């Protein structure tokens, strides 16, 4: 056959369209990968595990015992969502986010596929954006998996009903669901800074494991620093400091300023590490 037989588009697709096309392919890659699916399943198993243990032991923890919200799960299954999120936030969620965001560029570089994407050509800024969106989508899926499985398992084990807030006031279940959505959105937004850090570290190396591990380390060190009272001056700016502020959604009067402070810190981390990732990735020699 001759070259002329294979028809292609005459004009390039508009940048937004081309980006969407690449994003679809990227999402298929990220969510089709067995490793990532197993991680998601592992996260989803956490609320199932907590629910099963509480159900079998029929032992309601005393308030203040165990992680926050655990004592309320047996009373109202909705709280299994919150208890599971609190359990996953210190380590499991950052781990999963670090693996996918650290793999974003370094994985392609390590496999050598990066050079072929770039000569297709994919503009480097577009590729970085698509990688960031896909990693963020994965973080969102991870949080959503915990929430959905938590809700279903909570309802199955303990039933759901009107939600008693931290203040003792009661709101209808429907409003409780809206607030749960708010919690999920806030937790996802809380992970954006870590995604940006992972993406930046991913542009520094051709060894994906190195990028993944250093991203986890950033999250853990941030948690350690957050626990040292001597460093209280820097606490408000730490990546992980506001992660558990999602409890704000369970107050009668939600204090928007607390939530906005958390979101602002994430935005700052995203801006700084996004810019670093961009400047590094758009200028680096691709020699892998």
């Amino acid at each position, binding site marked *: 056959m001759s070259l*002329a037989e294979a028809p292609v588009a005459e004009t*390039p697709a508009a940048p937004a369209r*081309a980006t969407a096309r690449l994003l679809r392919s990227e999402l298929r*890659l990220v969510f089709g990968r067995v490793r990532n699916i197993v991680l998601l399943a592992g996260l989803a198993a956490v609320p199932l595990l907590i629910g099963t243990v509480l159900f079998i032991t029929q032992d309601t923890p005393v308030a203040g015992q165990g992680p926050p919200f655990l004592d309320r799960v047996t009373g109202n299954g909705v709280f299994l969502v919150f208890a599971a999120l609190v359990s996953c936030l210190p380590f499991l969620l950052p781990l999963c986010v670090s693996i996918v965001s650290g793999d974003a560029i370094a994985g392609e570089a390590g496999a050598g596929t990066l050079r072929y994407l*770039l*000569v*297709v050509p994919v503009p480097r800024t577009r590729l970085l954006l698509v990688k960031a969106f896909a990693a963020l989508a994965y973080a969102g899926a991870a949080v959503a998996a915990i929430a959905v499985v938590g809700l279903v398992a909570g309802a199955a084990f303990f039933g759901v009903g009107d939600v008693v807030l931290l203040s003792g006031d009661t709101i209808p279940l429907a409003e409780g669901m809206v607030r749960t959505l708010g919690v999920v959105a806030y937790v996802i937004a809380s992970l954006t800074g870590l995604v940006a850090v992972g993406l930046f570290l991913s542009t520094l190396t051709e060894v994906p494991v190195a990028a993944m591990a250093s991203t986890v380390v950033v999250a853990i060190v941030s948690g350690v620093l957050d626990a040292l009272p001597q460093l209280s001056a820097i606490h408000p700016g730490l990546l992980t400091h506001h992660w558990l502020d999602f409890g704000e959604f369970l107050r009668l009067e939600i204090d928007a300023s607390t939530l906005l402070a958390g979101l602002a810190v994430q935005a700052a981390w995203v801006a700084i590490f996004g810019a670093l990732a961009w400047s590094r990735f758009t200028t680096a020699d691709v020699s892998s």
Partner: protein
Amino acid sequence: MTADVPAAEPAVRTRGLTKRFRSGQVGVDAIDLHVPRGAVYGFLGPNGSGKTTTIRMLLGLVSPTAGSVELLGAPMPQAGPAVLPRVGALVEGPAFHPYLSGEANLRRLDAADATASPATRARRVGAALERVGLTAAAGKKYRQYSLGMKQRLGLAAALLRPRDLLLLDEPTNGLDPQGTREVRALVRELADGGATVLVSSHLLSEIEQVCSHVGIMSQGRLLAQGRRAEIADDGAPEVHVATRSDQRGHLARVLTGLGMTDVRVDGEVVAASLGSVAVEKVAQAVVGDGVDLLGLEVRRPTLEDVFVRLTGEGFDVAR
């Protein structure tokens, strides 16, 4: 030809292209590549001579320390988005996602191409796979491909759409002799279709036969480039004459008497630079002088001979 279509514009042109690595080592040293349109350009040199780094700079993967690159008449890397869709490339071996099938890998690359129509994707992917003989293994995971199949998939990726220029870095690596022949045939076919092909190799004999032009790299420098015939003709043809061992001295005197230079006993034969002496005169003179002629051969220098002459070392000596 009209004035606004500069047909003579080369497909690849570099001026003073240089890459100095952070280590201080100069990988590519001020090379002026000139690949005419329609040429099959053999980019030759031992491993480590700077071929791959040069190709990476042509494609905008690596930024040059100095010098400029033009692909199909447009400056790189600035014109990359417009020019690269017309360029197919195989750079330092194939690379794909191991856990995806060959077909899924090609689909992914095609989805990344803003200028490729999704409507024709399946057809073009199928055609590219067929062209390199991978149709039967299309659904197999890349991880399970043999080295030769991986190389073929790399070629298929370069052929996903019509290209005006192909930059093929070591396309025969890992292929068996049959595969190597197929690649040569493919290169010929591409050139016949009007594409310009730059093929790099550290194995001269594998691609020498298909090249119209050659460029010879050694230690980061372009030692020679031009039409293959011209480069090879730079070395004068030699005559190798065989006779019995006790007559070799006599034979050498006869050849010198004919006006040949560089006469020497080279193993079993007496070799000499033919110069302007006609070959038929050599046989007559040798026999006429009573030397038993056991064999006579005129040898044109191969590219490898040219390379050895230019660099003073064997071709397979890596830096």
